[in-house]
C-alpha cells in the first residue's frame, strides 16, 4: 500500500487530450533567452494570489486572535490593552479549566480505544480471511460520513434503543439514557469519535503491516510461537513507528472535538461534555471575544507543542 503511487498512476497516463492542432504549432519567438530556470510571470501568477488569500484567511486571523487576547475587546467597538488579565482570569475560570480537562482526558481515552481497535482490525484484515476487500470497504465507511449526522443517528440509539434494550433484559444502570447522565455522557462521545476515527487509523496500520516481510513470521512459526505471542513479540515492536504516528495524529484530531459532541450531547448535561472548541465558540455568542481568544491562544500552544513533539519523533525515526 505504501507503494500506491505506482498503482494509482495508471488512469493518469492518458494525458489530457489537449494536444490538438496547437501541439504542432512551434513557438515563433526565441522566448526568454539566457538562463531558463528563472521565475517568470506565470510562476508568480501561480503563487502570489494564493499567498495573499492565504495570508488574509489564515495568517491574519491567527495574528489578530493573539493580539486581541491582550485586550478587552468584545468583538466590536473600542478596546484597551489589558496585558495578561485575560490569561490570569482564564486560568482560574472553572468552566474553562473544566473544558481543557475534559478535552484532554477524552482525547487520551479515545486515543487508546481507537488505536487498540484499529490495530487489531488491521491485523485481522491483513490475515488470511475471506471477503477481505468487502470487509475493508465496510470498515472504512465511518471515515467518510458526516460526523454530526452520524452523531444524530447514535444519539437516537443511545437515547432510545439502548435504554429500551436494557429494560428488556432488566439491566438497571443502562435503563435511562447515558446521554442525560453527567458521569456517563462522555462515554458516548468516546464511542462515536472512535467509531469514526478507527478506519483512517486502521488504514495506516494496514500499510505498515503489509510492509512486514513474511519470513519474519515464518521463522517464529517454526519456533512454535503462538499467534498471540507473535503479535506481541514481533508485530507490535515492528509497528512501533506506525503506532507513534497514529497516536499523535489521533490525539491532535481529538483535541478539536466539536461536531460529534454537538450531535450527541451539545456539551451537556449542563457543561459536563463541553470541549475547548465549544468554549471558544461561546465567545462569539457571549461577547467574550478577547477572553476566548486567550483560551484559543493557550489551545494553540498545546497543539503546537504536540506538533513539535511529532516532528522531533518523526525525524528521529527517519535517522
Amino acid at each position: 500500500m505504501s507503494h500506491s503511487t505506482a498503482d494509482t498512476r495508471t488512469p493518469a497516463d492518458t494525458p489530457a487530450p489537449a494536444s490538438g492542432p496547437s501541439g504542432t504549432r512551434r513557438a515563433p519567438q526565441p522566448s526568454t533567452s539566457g538562463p531558463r530556470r528563472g521565475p517568470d510571470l506565470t510562476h508568480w501568477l501561480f503563487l502570489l494570489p494564493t499567498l495573499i488569500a492565504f495570508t488574509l484567511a489564515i495568517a491574519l486571523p491567527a495574528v489578530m486572535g493573539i493580539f486581541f487576547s491582550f485586550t478587552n475587546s468584545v468583538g466590536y467597538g473600542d478596546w484597551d490593552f489589558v496585558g495578561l488579565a485575560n490569561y490570569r482570569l482564564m486560568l482560574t475560570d472553572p468552566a474553562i479549566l473544566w473544558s481543557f480537562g475534559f478535552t484532554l482526558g477524552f482525547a487520551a481515552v479515545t486515543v487508546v480505544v481507537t488505536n487498540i481497535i484499529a490495530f487489531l482490525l488491521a491485523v485481522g484484515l491483513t490475515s488470511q480471511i475471506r471477503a477481505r476487500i468487502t470487509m475493508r470497504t465496510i470498515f472504512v465507511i465511518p471515515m467518510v460520513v458526516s460526523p454530526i449526522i452520524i452523531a444524530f443517528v447514535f444519539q437516537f440509539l443511545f437515547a432510545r434503543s439502548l435504554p429500551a434494550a436494557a429494560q428488556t433484559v432488566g439491566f438497571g444502570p443502562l435503563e435511562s439514557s447515558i446521554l442525560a447522565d453527567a458521569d456517563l455522557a462522555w462515554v458516548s462521545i468516546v464511542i462515536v469519535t472512535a467509531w469514526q476515527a478507527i478506519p483512517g487509523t486502521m488504514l495506516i496500520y494496514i500499510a505498515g503491516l503489509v510492509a512486514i516481510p513474511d519470513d519474519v513470521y515464518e521463522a517464529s512459526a517454526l519456533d512454535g510461537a503462538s499467534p498471540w505471542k507473535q503479535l506481541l513479540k514481533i508485530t507490535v515492536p515492528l509497528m512501533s513507528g506506525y503506532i507513534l504516528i497514529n497516536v499523535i495524529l489521533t490525539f491532535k484530531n481529538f483535541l478539536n472535538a466539536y461536531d460529534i459532541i454537538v450531535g450527541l450531547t451539545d456539551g451537556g448535561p449542563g457543561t459536563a461534555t463541553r470541549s475547548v472548541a465549544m468554549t471558544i465558540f461561546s465567545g462569539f455568542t457571549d461577547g467574550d471575544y478577547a477572553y476566548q481568544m486567550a483560551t484559543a491562544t493557550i489551545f494553540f500552544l498545546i497543539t503546537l507543542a504536540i506538533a513539535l513533539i511529532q516532528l522531533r519523533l518523526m525525524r528521529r525515526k527517519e535517522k
Partner: protein
Amino acid sequence: MSTQEITSIKASRTRRRYNLPLTVVLALCTLTVLVPLFVTVSMAFKSGAQAVQGEAFTLPNPLSIEGFIEAWRLTDFPVSFGISVFVSAIAVAGAVLISSMAAYAIHANWERRFFKFAFFYILAAMFLPFPVLALSQIKLTGMVGLDTPLGVGILHIMFHLGFNVLLLTTFLRNMPHELEEAARIDGASTWQTFWRVIFPVLAPMSATVGIFAFLFSWNDFMMPSMIISDPSLQTLPVVNQLFQSQFSSNYHVSFASYLMALAPSILVFVFTQRWVLSGVTQGAVKS
C-alpha cells in the same frame, strides 16, 4: 526436502488459506458499522405512525417514503443540497487547481528564497486548528461580505492548502526532470508546460486531493455553522442540526433527512475507494 514434506506444507497452506474463526469475528465486527447505517435506512422508510414508536430494529412495515417527502419540504432540501454542492465544488476545484499551481511554482523555483519561504509559510497553517482562528475569521468574513457559502468554500481551500501543497510538491520532486525539460525545449511557455505536462502528471495525486476535499467539505459542520450568517444559506449538515427540534419524534422525517445528507459521501467513497485508501496512507507518511 521430500515430496511428502512439500505436500504437507502445501496442504497446511491451503488449510490456512482462510482463517474461518477470524473471518467470523471480523464479520461480526462489521455489524458495528452496518447496524447504525441499517437503522438510518430502515427508520427513513417507515411510515409516520410506525416511526413515532422509536423502535430502531424493526423493519419498515409498510414501506413508506412519507419521511422523504416531508423532509424534502420541511428543510427545503433542494436549496441546502445545492448549497452543499456549491461549497464542495469550490473546495474541490480550489484544492485541485490552486494547490497544484502553487506546488508547481514552488517546485520550479525551489532554490529561490522567496518560494522556499512561501512553502514553509503555507505549511505552518497545518498547526492552526479552526477553533483557534474561528472568532477572528467570523469577524473578518463578516466585514468583507464573505459570511456566505462562497466564504466557507474559500476557507476550506485555504485550510487544506498546506497539506495539499506538501503532497503535491513531494510528488513533483519524484517526477523525472526530462518531462519538463522536453516541453521547454519544444518552446512551451510555463503556462503551457503546466497544463500539458505538470497537471496531467499530477492527476492521480490531484484525484486523491480532490476526493478528500469533497469529503471534508461535504461533511463539515463546524465551519459553515460558524461562518455562514444567514440560516437559509446553510449546508446540509448544519440544516440537519437547525431542524433537530422541528423533527421532534417524527423519526421517519429526521432519518430520511440524515440519509439524504449521508448518501452522497458514501456513494463517492464507494466509487473512488482506491484513491481514498491510498490517500490516507500517503497522508500519514507526509504529515
